[in-house]
């Protein structure tokens, strides 16, 4: 099993979610996060006080999928989240040691 963690532009969440539904991904966790990469921050002005804002709002999606399905998830996210401009985000893929459904105690891929 793999955990796919993707940091994307907030406005790309809907299309990515739809695409993951299409390939029968049944659950995901979404978090509003802040950070920066090569895009760097931006400047904001409040009543003439100008501030460098280093951390930009992004959305982090976490999905766990079987080894076979993981590549399809990655492809779907890349396809829907890409604008081609700087700031599109990153995807990290990790191995998952175990999954347990709390309600029933099931383990392994059946619990995903």
């Amino acid at each position, binding site marked *: 099993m793999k955990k796919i963690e993707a940091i994307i532009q907030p406005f790309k969440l809907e299309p990515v979610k739809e695409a993951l539904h299409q390939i029968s991904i049944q659950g995901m966790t979404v978090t509003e996060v802040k950070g920066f990469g090569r895009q760097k921050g931006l400047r904001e002005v*409040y009543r003439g006080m*100008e501030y460098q804002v280093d951390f930009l709002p992004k959305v982090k999606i976490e999905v766990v999928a079987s080894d076979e399905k993981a590549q399809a998830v990655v492809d779907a996210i890349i396809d829907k989240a890409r604008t081609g401009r700087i700031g599109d985000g990153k995807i990290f893929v990790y191995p998952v040691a175990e999954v347990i459904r709390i309600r029933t105690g099931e383990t392994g891929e059946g619990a995903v």
Partner: protein
Amino acid sequence: MNSADTAFVLVSAALVMLMTPGLALFYGGMVRSKNVLGTLMQNFIMLGVIGVQWALFGYSLAFGPDVGGIIGNLDWLGLNGVGLEPFKAYSETIPHQTFMIYQAMFAIITPALITGAWAERMKFSTFLVFIILWATLVYDPVAHWVWGDGGWLKGLGALDFAGGTVVHINAGVAALAAALVMGPRKGWGGYGNGAEAFIPHNLPMTVLGAGLLWFGWFGFNAGSALASGGLASTAFTATHLATCAAVLSWTGLEWIIRGKPTSLGAASGAVAGLVAVTPAAGFVGPMSAIIIGLGAGSICYLAVLAKVKLGYDDSLDVVGVHCVGGIWGALATGLLASKAINSAGADGLLFGNPQQLVIQTLAVGVIIVFSFIVSWGLLKILDATMGLRVTPEEEVAGLDLSEHQEAGYSI
């Protein structure tokens, strides 16, 4: 006695009361989230503290029987003798008690305005002592000079319809003294040099607060006619038009200078317009009101920019908006007042009476000097005795936790 006038002034009093929580939201949105409750609290508690001060002795000092044009005596201590019959020097058509409770709301919001200057760093206990002293030694005498029966500035013929000098210049100058005595917030470094960011945490709250202030201000200005009728309508219309114009001039100017019109600019422009039209509301026509508003939005915006260059940390721009806007409004009243609008008023410079501008300037100058000296002195004494600021650790933790043991937002 007139029941329409009484109803109008009672409703106006309720409208002015709403301005204080409105101001709390206006200020609360501009601070960082760790100080939101501390900021709201300094405004909300004012209803309690000054409300009681006013009933015990504040009203008597401000409006009681005159002592030498300087102050009221203590005949009306505990509202003794403030009954349901009109007190003719203030109004012939509403109960004396109605006038008293209407004025109570002004006494409450005035020190609340100052809280923006020391936002995010003042110690709550010292704050309580300061506002009681300030209300008693600054607000009550100044209110007496300008509005009290026998007050010396009233006798000179200074025009201040709803409190441009008593409320806004007075509070704005005290705010300047406070910003200077207290010093900047920890990490505040002025303009664009990589200093810590003091970003407003909730501008929707600020815009809502500005909306409530605008709404309540109709009670403040139109209500100051103390009667339902033509004068109230004049003041209501002038108030609205000046505010509309100030929203446009503030956002327009920042669009030109900074490249974008901001929501904080629109909210600030509205308050600047309301401040500036306050002394003028019952004395000027609709087109004069628009001129006052256009001037207020642009002058106050430039004053706020100047603060950054001058380097004093008046956190929420009480000086730039209330002091500068109040001065502009008082002087503009000396330019634009017209007897054709209000025969009980006076003509301004542009209507052939240059003397009025001289009187207005004198009243402004006197209040600036008095308020600054007394406010400065009180703050210095409290700094040496109780300490004005929370500790640096408490300032980093935020006032919500350090002064009130609670958090504005939790999961």
